[in-house]
């Protein structure tokens, strides 16, 4: 691999000095002159017909500027995937979950807006609600959506190879079930937005979103506007994890209020509204059968999953496909079938969350691998190595592993955790377990069917030649993408990082599909590299003309022009530059021609030097229905070892250490890669150990705050050893691929396998509350007649 000057370092992030000093601006930090405050009226019922809405009292309240309902918002349906649009801004005929939006108010203050919301009178006819998959599928159950019998939102049936044959030829067949609980994103910044129209009718929406582009399209479509008249700006965002990866009803309501009042309008969700909107990880109920030979060779997987979807589709159609498509790897396996079902019910809609669709399937399957290993008396780590895919392999559902450092990851965690010294040698109550996983480096196709570019980037050199401006519509939401792209631009141009300025998150800067499916490093990274190469080429072309030297003999590195062989005489160019530079006292004196000089001369010859770059993946995947979901130009992969202590008397599980190795291709910024790994592990631990959104019988979230919905705190977080494994991904910019989501895949099964090692119990339901683990231990003791 090429030696890099900037990439693969631990450069400080470009956004964190502002974040550390409180200067970084998030949406609620912004106010506008004359700004109004909006508030939503949301349904208190899980399922009800709306008989009438009376807004007259609310409208009369002093300080109220607008009250809107579906009469203003219209009936245009939107959602995530166009084939599955099933939401309107406001409920028209009925409400489908506690929190469904009915109306919104804009007023001079938030207090007035909230008071006005209370004055809106809605007459409901309460309908019977269905809150579980079982209730929703029952004969005669009330239907949420016309045209979805049995409340079935989506179903997927796939078979690759011949599963029946594969199982017939297996010596060991294991069937288990696995269930998680509905999760919440629990990002610390609640969603907020500000909408405003200018006098020419252009709408600017500033929003806490991961996907300015998709929000722009949805807003334009729902408000009946040209996309070019809608600008979406993403300020700094307090994380998203998938939940902020589509337009939300508040953003749409805010835009409609701004249009009606002709004033800027700000709206925020409260924390309980974040829980009500949900759109986070589904509850999955898996039944998986895996067959293997006596020597450990994996033969077949038969996989069935039921997704508790909530009231709308949201990302669900992608989720139900991902759940199946991301299971087969990272192992060699010829036969796999999948039957997936997503069911509507009267709870908030679930959507995408870190490790989209695939986390619980992995938790089930990776436990089965340990069970197979135990049956045949093989080290579970060796079983995985035996079946591991290699670089260039393709899964039975056509996912191609163009780079794959999986074996290196396993060896790294084996060594890092001291696996060989610990496995099978730990005292009762202490355990060690491992698991593997992989994830896409960007969805192979956009959410709406299109040939669109997935990312476009502009690199503009300032007229003085000193600085490169990078413009991208991509979304920095905390993961470090701005820094990664600045580093890629600097590396490509051959200039120091401090000479790059970057602006992102604004749809006026181009097209970028945004921060989801771990896509930006690879996709926006490619577009950035392309744009920087374009800009650099223009500078070198001018230089070649001026110096009458062949362009292929020149390059720029570390801020200076490098010539192959003897440098031509550039004194005329330097003189010209110095004349341009009168008044400054930093005239160039170096023996080398600087980038700054060359770039200034290029500007004088050609005007603004603007490089444009773009990226979309090559055609990916098979021809079967749903083949698009799960495809990606590249896959990141990881292995993890968990070490736990289980209190056999109380069922309390303590995670002592996680050793995590991830193949991210070429690491653009090593510190950021480790940060993604550690953050992924913490979210996985939360889901494994205590996260669960709990509902009452009326469909209301009971634990709608961060006190009762328990994410990992500084007291819970175990020591995490993050080991970055680098490979050279041919489809990635400078060989880079994902790290943001793949790193969560092995966490839960590694913990579950360690719990088994410690306590002899297999848990098939999350989270691992002491009660659940205690009961499992008691059952185990009774079964094995242990006192």
């Amino acid at each position: 691999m090429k030696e890099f000057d900037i990439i693969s370092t631990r450069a400080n992030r470009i956004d964190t000095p502002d974040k550390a000093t409180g200067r970084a601006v998030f949406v609620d930090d912004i106010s506008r002159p004359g700004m109004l405050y909006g508030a939503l009226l949301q349904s208190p019922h899980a399922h009800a017909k709306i008989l009438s809405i009376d807004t007259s009292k609310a409208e009369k309240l002093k300080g109220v500027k607008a009250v809107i309902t579906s009469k203003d918002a219209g009936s245009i349906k939107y959602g995530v995937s166009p084939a599955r649009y099933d939401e309107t801004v406001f409920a028209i005929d009925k409400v489908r979950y506690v929190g469904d939006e009915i109306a919104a108010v804009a007023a001079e203050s938030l207090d007035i807006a909230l008071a006005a919301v209370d004055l809106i009178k809605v007459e409901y006819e309460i309908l019977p609600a269905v809150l579980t998959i079982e209730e929703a599928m029952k004969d005669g159950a009330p239907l949420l959506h016309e045209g979805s019998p049995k409340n079935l939102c989506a179903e997927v049936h796939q078979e690759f190879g011949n599963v029946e044959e594969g199982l017939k030829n297996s010596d060991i067949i294991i069937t288990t079930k696995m269930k998680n609980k509905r999760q919440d994103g629990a990002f610390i910044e609640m969603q907020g937005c500000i909408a405003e129209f200018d006098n020419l009718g252009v709408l600017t929406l500033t929003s806490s979103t991961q996907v300015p582009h998709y929000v722009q399209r949805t807003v334009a479509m729902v408000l009946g506007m040209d996309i070019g008249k809608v600008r979406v700006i993403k300020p700094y965002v307090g994380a998203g994890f998938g939940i902020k990866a589509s337009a939300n009803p508040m953003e749409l309501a805010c835009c409609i209020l701004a249009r009606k009042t002709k004033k800027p309008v700000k709206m925020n969700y409260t924390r309980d509204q974040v829980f009500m909107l949900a759109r986070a990880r589904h509850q999955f109920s898996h039944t998986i059968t895996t067959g293997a030979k006596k020597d450990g060779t994996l033969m077949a997987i038969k996989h069935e999953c039921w997704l508790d979807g909530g009231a709308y589709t949201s990302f669900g159609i992608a989720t139900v496909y991902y759940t199946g498509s991301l299971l087969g790897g990272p192992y060699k396996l010829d036969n796999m079938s999948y039957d997936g079902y997503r069911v509507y019910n009267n709870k908030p809609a679930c959507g995408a969350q870190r490790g989209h669709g695939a986390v619980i399937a992995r938790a089930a399957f990776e436990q089965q691998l340990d069970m197979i290993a135990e049956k045949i008396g093989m080290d579970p780590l060796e079983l995985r190595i035996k079946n591991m895919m290699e670089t260039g392999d393709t899964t039975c559902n056509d996912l191609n592993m163009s780079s794959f450092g999986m074996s290196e990851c396993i060896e790294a965690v084996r060594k890092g955790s001291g696996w060989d010294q610990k496995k099978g040698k730990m005292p009762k109550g202490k355990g060690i377990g491992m698991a593997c996983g992989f994830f896409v480096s960007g969805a192979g196709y956009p959410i709406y069917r299109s040939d669109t570019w997935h990312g476009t980037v502009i690199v503009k050199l300032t007229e003085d030649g000193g600085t490169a401006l990078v413009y991208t519509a991509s979304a920095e939401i905390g993961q470090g993408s701005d820094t990664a792209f600045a580093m890629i631009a600097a590396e490509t141009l051959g200039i120091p990082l401090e000479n790059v300025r970057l602006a992102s998150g604004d749809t006026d800067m181009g097209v970028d599909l945004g921060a989801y499916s771990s896509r930006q490093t690879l996709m926006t990274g490619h577009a950035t590299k392309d744009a920087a190469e374009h800009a650099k080429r223009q500078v070198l072309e001018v230089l070649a003309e001026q110096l009458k030297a062949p362009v292929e003999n020149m390059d720029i590195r570390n801020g200076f022009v490098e010539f192959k062989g003897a440098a031509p005489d550039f004194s005329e160019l330097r003189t010209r530059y110095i004349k341009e530079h009168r008044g400054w006292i930093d005239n160039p004196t170096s023996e080398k021609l600087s980038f700054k000089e060359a770039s200034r001369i290029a500007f004088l010859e050609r005007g603004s030097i603007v490089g444009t770059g773009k990226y979309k993946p090559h055609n990916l995947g098979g021809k079967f229905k749903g083949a698009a979901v799960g495809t990606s130009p590249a896959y990141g992969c990881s292995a993890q070892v968990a070490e736990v202590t289980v209190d056999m008397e109380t069922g309390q599980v303590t995670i002592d250490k996680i050793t995590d190795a991830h193949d991210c291709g070429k690491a653009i910024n090593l510190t950021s890669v480790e940060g993604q790994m550690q953050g992924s592990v913490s979210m996985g631990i939360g889901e494994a150990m205590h996260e669960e959104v709990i509902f009452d019988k009326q469909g209301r979230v009971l634990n709608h705050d961060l006190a009762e919905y328990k994410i990992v705190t500084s007291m819970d977080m175990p020591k995490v050893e993050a080991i970055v494994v680098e490979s050279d991904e041919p489809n990635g910019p400078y060989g880079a691929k994902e790290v943001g989501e793949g790193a969560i895949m092995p966490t839960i099964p590694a913990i579950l396998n360690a719990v088994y090692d410690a306590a002899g119990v297999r848990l098939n339901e999350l989270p691992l509350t002491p009660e659940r683990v205690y009961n499992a231990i008691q059952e185990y003791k009774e079964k094995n007649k242990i006192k």
Partner: protein
Amino acid sequence: MKKIIHLTINELDHEIAVEPNKTLADLLRYDLKLTGTKKGCDTGDCGACTVIMNGDPVNSCLVLAVQTNGSRIETVEGLSTDEGIHPIQKAFVEKGAIQCGYCTPGMIMSTKSLLDKNPNPSEQEIREGISGNLCRCTGYTKIFEAIESLRS
């Protein structure tokens, strides 16, 4: 009825008329435009709004502005000096302890309070010192490293 309060914020004296139900977080953010202090829940669960009041860290969303009469408040904006950013801020930047940055101001104020009282905290004391500050991005690991690097 508004009440007049006197308080010092980042060593600057203020005399302000505040509504009796206004929280310190809202006073700082919306009236005084000190938006470095963040709100992540408004119920005292997340710690994003942590400021230092008379030497102790508090969730400013749980403190009424009127309760701060006569108090000394430190916010994230008060940490930087003419010499540059505060060593805690520098450590957070250099150790990669910041991702989305929304919890960061509160996390840094808790850290400051911890180190002001205990310049050489143990690992356990560091964990306890920031246990009221939730971070969903980092898994805390690099935050621990940043604080450990500041031990005297």
